[in-house]
Each structure stands twice: as C-alpha cells, then as structure tokens.
C-alpha cells in the first residue's frame, strides 16, 4: 500500500478526522473481503472509493456503517465508536439492493431517513416533515413525491436514495455507486450536489467506477482490491501501475487530457 500526497486545496473546514478506519479485516463465512484496510478521511472532503467488482467496496462501506462487523480492527466516526455515531452517517445502497416494487411512495422512502432519529413509538413531527420536504426539493423530487418508487427511472431512483440519506441530516455520507449507469447530465448534477455538500462541511465517501469524476472533483482516491492498493491525490493514485495492480491487469488505462479511457482485454 502506498500513501500518496494529497491535494493542497482540499478545503478542510474545522480540522479533524471524519472517518478513521484502523487495520480492518472483514469477510463473510471464511471468505476474506478486506485485508488490513487502514486510512483516515478528513472532515469536509470527498473521497472516491475505486476498485473492481468484488474488491470489498460495499463491505468497507458496511463496516464503516456498523452494518457488518469486522473480524479485526475498528472504525471511528468523528472520533466516536460507530454505534454512538450512527445518527451522523447517511447511506445509499447500490440501486440493485433496493426492492423497487415495494408499495411505498418517494415521500415515504425519504421520510424513512428520519426514522433513525425518532426511536420506538414516535411519529414524524412537523419538523421532520419539513426536513423531508427540503430534501425532496433539493433533489428535485417534488413532482414525483407521490409516485410509487417502481415508477421511476434509474436516475430518479438514485436521487430518492440520496434524498433519504440527506433526510438523516448526516455529517458523513457513504454512497455506494450513486452514479453508475447515469447519463452525463445527471452525473454532472450529482457531482455539483456533492460539492455543495462538501462546502457545507459534510464528508463524502463515494464508491464509483468513474475514474474521471474522481480525478476532476474528488479530494482523494482510495484504490481497493481487498487490501488498500493506494490512497491519496487521485492523479497520483490513478497510475497505470497502481490501477493494473488493483484491477489485476484486466485493463489498459489510457489517460487522455484529464480523462481515462479504459480498454478491457481479457486476462487469458
């Protein structure tokens, strides 16, 4: 693993560490998914989590969320144990992990973002509903609020998940492939939303396959394939050598004017 220098301009408001992952080992019934992952994310920064499918990106996010318990190591969120910091974290799962046929409306789903704060036997108050409306508005979902979630397009569904995460009013956002399969316009919209959130002091860890996005807009990149291959300034992380190490040479990466062109060639 290599720790590389990070961009100087990373705007770090109120210095401090948002996410601290300490030597985390994790997996599922004997199969190792993460091997000694160890890094820190400063407050108010955007980190792109990059790696091939099955490289442990989702597992890492779930460990940070406390949804999956590591075998070894620990995670601190804003200096607290995950359990205590649960309310500070917003999360969007991969779109494939959500039951889109479930009979709930867009507004119902975003309201669920408030449930974690409410606790047992408590119903959303006017203040909670106000937060929900603000999040719907911010993701431009007002016109779709009464739609059943299965009646939405892929881009709209991703916006619903992000709106729900924002309704949690989190300090840290963990987003699992929020931009996969979106067209360029909507990707751009999302990126500017992420930048707005960072300017508000939120910390974002975003799993993605889009190296160009990470290079242009993110403060750091974390290259993962079970173990951490590299972490730091995206331009330093996304070298031919390190990418091939992470992607096991299944790719040839051609950097062209700040974007990356990837060419798959089978490993046979």
């Amino acid at each position, binding site marked *: 693993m290599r720790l590389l220098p990070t961009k100087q301009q990373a705007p770090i408001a109120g210095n401090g560490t948002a996410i601290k992952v300490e030597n985390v080992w994790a997996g599922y019934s004997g199969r190792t998914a993460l091997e000694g992952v160890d890094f820190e994310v400063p407050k108010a920064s955007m980190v792109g989590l990059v790696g091939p499918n099955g490289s442990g990106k989702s597992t890492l996010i779930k460990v940070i969320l406390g*949804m999956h318990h590591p075998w070894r190591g620990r995670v601190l969120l804003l200096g607290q144990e995950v359990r205590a910091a*649960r309310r500070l974290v917003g999360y969007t799962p991969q779109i494939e992990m959500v039951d889109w046929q479930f009979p*709930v409306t867009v507004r119902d789903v975003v309201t*669920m973002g408030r449930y974690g704060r409410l606790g047992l*036997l408590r119903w959303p108050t006017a203040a909670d509903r106000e937060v929900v409306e603000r999040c719907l508005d911010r993701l*431009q979902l007002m016109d779709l609020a009464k739609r059943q979630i299965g009646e939405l397009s892929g881009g709209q569904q991703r916006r619903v998940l992000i709106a729900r995460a924002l309704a949690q009013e989190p300090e840290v956002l963990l987003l699992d492939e929020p931009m996969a399969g979106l067209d360029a316009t909507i990707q751009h919209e999302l990126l500017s939303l992420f930048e707005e959130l960072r300017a508000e002091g939120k910390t974002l860890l975003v799993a993605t396959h889009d190296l160009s996005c990470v290079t242009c807009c993110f403060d750091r990149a974390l290259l993962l394939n079970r173990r951490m291959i590299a972490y730091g300034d995206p331009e330093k992380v996304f070298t031919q050598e390190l990418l091939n190490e992470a992607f096991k040479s299944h790719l040839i990466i051609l950097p062209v004017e700040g974007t990356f062109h990837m060419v798959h060639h089978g490993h046979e």
Partner: protein
Amino acid sequence: MSEAWTWLSEPFQYTFMQRALLSLAMVSAVSAVIGVFVVQKGLAFIGDALAHASFAGVAMAFVLGSSIYLGAVIAAVATALAIGFVSRRTRLSLDTAIGIIFVGAFALGIVIISRQSNYTVDLFSFVFGNVLGVGWHDLLIIGVMAAAIIAVVGAFYKELLFYAYDPDMAAASGVPVQVVHYGLLTLIAVAAVVALKAVGIVLVVAMLVTPAATAALLVRRLHHMMVVGALVGLASSVIGLYVSYYASVASGASIVLVATCLFGLAWLVSPRRGLLMLRHPETSFEAEDLAVAARPRDPA
C-alpha cells in the same frame, strides 16, 4: 326488488350466519394487515407452515382439555421461532427449515389425535374450517387476538415498514431488526390462528396472501394495501357465504375461491400491472427525467 332483497337478507336472518360474517370481518382485517407483509416479504410458505403447525397445538389442547386457541397459538409461535432459529444456526435455506419443522409439527398433531378414540368432527373443523360453527366464545377469542394484532402493528408500523422495505438500512438506523423479524413471524403465527376456524388450516394461507396480493395490484402504499386487502377479504367473505348458502357448498372453500376470482379480476384491470393495461405504460420516464434534471437548480 323485494325479491332480490329477500334473497340477499335471508341467509343473514340466522344468527350462525351473522356470527360467521362477524368472524370473517375480523379475519379479513387481520389477514390483510399481516398479509401485506407476507406478500411483500415472500413469506407465503411460512404462513402456510405456521397454520399447519398449529394443528399440533390444537390436538394437544384437545387431549388435555384446555383451550384449543391457546394450544394453537403456542404451537404456531413456537414453530415460527424454531424456523427462524434453525435457519440461522444451520446452513439450511429458510424454505428447507420450514419444510422440516412444519411437517414435523403437523405429524405430531396427527400422532396425538390418533391415540384418541373420540376424535372426529370437532378437530376436523379446524383442518377444513367451519365458519358456520363459530360460537360466541370463538368470536370473543378471535376478537381479542385480532385487536391485539392490529394494536401491535399500529404501534410498531414505522419499524415494520422500514424492516420490510429495507432491512439493512433499518438496521443501520438503529431498528432492532432481529426483534422485528421474530415479532413479524409471531404476528403471522397469531394471524394464522385467528383465521383457523373460519377457513381451516389448509386454506389459511389463502386469506393471508390473496386479498393482500389483490390490493398490491390496485394501490401503491403499504397502509392503503391493508385497507383495500381487508375490503377484498370482506367482499370475498360475503359473496362466498352467499355461494355457500345457496349452492350448499363448503363455506371456507367458497370464500377462498371468490378471493381467487377477485385477484384475477384485479389482475385484468390493475392500473399499473393489469393485463389490459400493458399497452399504456405510465409515461416516458427518460424524457421526464431529463426535463427535471435540466431545470436550473435553486441556488439556495
């Protein structure tokens, strides 16, 4: 007009028919409230299993001379918890765990009653249902169980909804999903016992699944599904009772058949998934999505 009225009102002049209708109204409400979770979580097989497993409790209570409902609830709840436990502690899939445990419980029931010389009618009214034989005592017990189920679902609706829709996220938000999971299985077990006398062990699953599935075709929010499902169940019950009365056929089975027909009807005309509506997709999503995205963002 008056002839039609006579035809309609005649069956319900009998108190046994009134009691039957009252019990079916409660069964419909409870089955819909629990059935929406059964349908959405794909728990139909477990619902069927719990109804069958309750037979062990029915038989045991019959032998011991205690309350048959109490026996049924204990057996069904114990089976629900055992299924959850076995599927967690072994590498068996959930449906294998269900298959092993519920037939075991059902067989236990048969073994117990086969030792009795005087079993016949009373016990078999639980197997095939005997809604026309529902007494005031049955109504009272069904009513108490129904009220308890609806109260619990009402109180914990938020958690049940969150768990049913997105268990991972619910867990991350601090919902005790294990407790909710076993709680839901327990609720299904009690709901199965509520419907036991009305439609019988073998048809309980129909009351849990069919009206809720019908409602799923018609409305788009979980609590609306509960209301519509209860109405579908009630309509099936009323029509089924008429069929049973005038055609002299088994009442439980008639009700279930009517419910199946209503499901077919809803499938045909469903605004979203109906067979007749396939040519009218709701809107063109892509165009709309782009339009929304293209709208300038509010600087605030």
